[in-house]
């Protein structure tokens, strides 16, 4: 069975649908990269899949509690140390080992540093290390490599590959190259929602358009 199956999905933002008719499946060991111009609706689609907002139309099939979501904001607390931040999420998700996650993203040396004293790229690495401690099979990542330098992008690709090899899957939106040649790519441009009266308006803006 596939980890995630999306059927004819329409997702809306600001009361207007952004993309519609999107379908794909994602099996264990697979990675899918979403592409498309600014504002097409990548972020919106990912938030639907993560369960943060309801789909306007269509179905999303997956096991409950299988998604780990990571967006631009990393959910880090500046006053807590790197380890404390990670341990918190590990305990919330009841997931994996903090030490392993630190090692995977090369954060061991910074383990006792408060998150406030990390640079943008180091923060991002900590945000990605968080994925490992969730223990969730399906990673949903929105522009995961923003502000990472080349070496860290490498490390991120390795992280994803390990995850895939372990039976996980990853759904990612990005504008740039992630260094994951084996990943499938889905361009959202053809799915841009066409304005026009729809049976079920996505929100106020569409209901009164």
């Amino acid at each position, binding site marked *: 069975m596939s980890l995630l199956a999306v059927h004819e999905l329409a997702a809306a933002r600001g009361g207007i649908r952004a993309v519609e008719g999107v379908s794909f499946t994602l099996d264990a060991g697979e990675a899918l990269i979403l592409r498309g111009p600014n504002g097409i609706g990548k972020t919106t689609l990912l938030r639907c899949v993560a369960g943060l907002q309801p789909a306007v139309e269509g179905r999303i099939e997956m096991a409950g509690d299988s998604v780990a979501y990571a967006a631009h904001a990393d959910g880090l607390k500046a006053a807590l140390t790197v380890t404390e931040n990670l341990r918190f999420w590990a305990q919330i998700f009841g997931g994996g080992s903090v030490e392993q996650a630190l090692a995977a993203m090369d954060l061991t040396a910074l383990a006792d*540093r408060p998150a*406030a*004293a*990390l*640079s943008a790229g*180091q923060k991002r690495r900590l945000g990605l290390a968080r994925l490992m401690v969730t223990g969730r099979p399906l990673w949903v990542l929105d522009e995961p490599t923003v502000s990472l330098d080349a070496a860290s992008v490498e490390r991120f690709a390795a992280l994803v590959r390990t995850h895939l090899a372990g039976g996980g899957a990853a759904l990612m939106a990005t504008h740039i190259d992630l260094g994951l040649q084996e990943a499938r790519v889905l361009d959202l441009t053809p799915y841009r929602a066409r304005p026009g009266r729809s049976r079920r308006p996505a929100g106020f803006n569409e209901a009164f358009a």
Partner: protein
Amino acid sequence: MSIWEYANPVKFMRVSGAVLPWLVIAAAVCTIGGIAWGFLTPEDYKQGSTVKIVFLHVPAAMMAINIWVMMLIASLIWLIRRHHVSALAAKAAAPVGAVMTLIALATGAIWGQPMWGTWWEWDPRLTSFLILLLFYIGYIALWSAIEDADSAADLTGVLCLVGSVFALLSRYAVLFWNQGLHQGASLSVAPGERMSEVYRYPLYLSMLGFLLLFLVLVLVRTRTEIRRRRLAALQAREMRA
């Protein structure tokens, strides 16, 4: 050698480290001695044993005001001459001043119970101290809220300046507001000059002790702040590299 050289953190650490042990001994002797001597003084014919409270109350009240003045001077030095250590010294002094204010308030309140039959009266002097406590709290809260050290030093400095003006203004406003209930007479049952020698010498010792204790605490706390700043500075530099 100019006095400004002590604004150099390295120099400050060295000199303060050298004098601290002696200061600690002197402060311990004077404070403990003054308080103990005061505690052992005979009873006053009018106030009974409560007169012993004066050896805590008056030095604390004195220091509460003096420490604010010291913070004001340190802030001015920072704002005008940009000596980093003096900004940190102002920061270090504030919690000590707040504690002194608290001691003055607490001993006064406890004293007021037998003397005036009430824990608290909105007497101008008492009220002014409450207001002073508010200024200390605001100053400390602002320091701890701002992350960037340079902005924090500048902004707390400006606050200290404006706050001093308004603390003074509040003192006059409070006098105006509650002159009807002024408790001046009962407050100065034993004014400094007319105080008998049995009380005067332990009081002097205790006042000296509180002053030395303050110096010790400010030096220690400034050293703490310098070390914290140094750690943060090293981390910031490494982060940028």
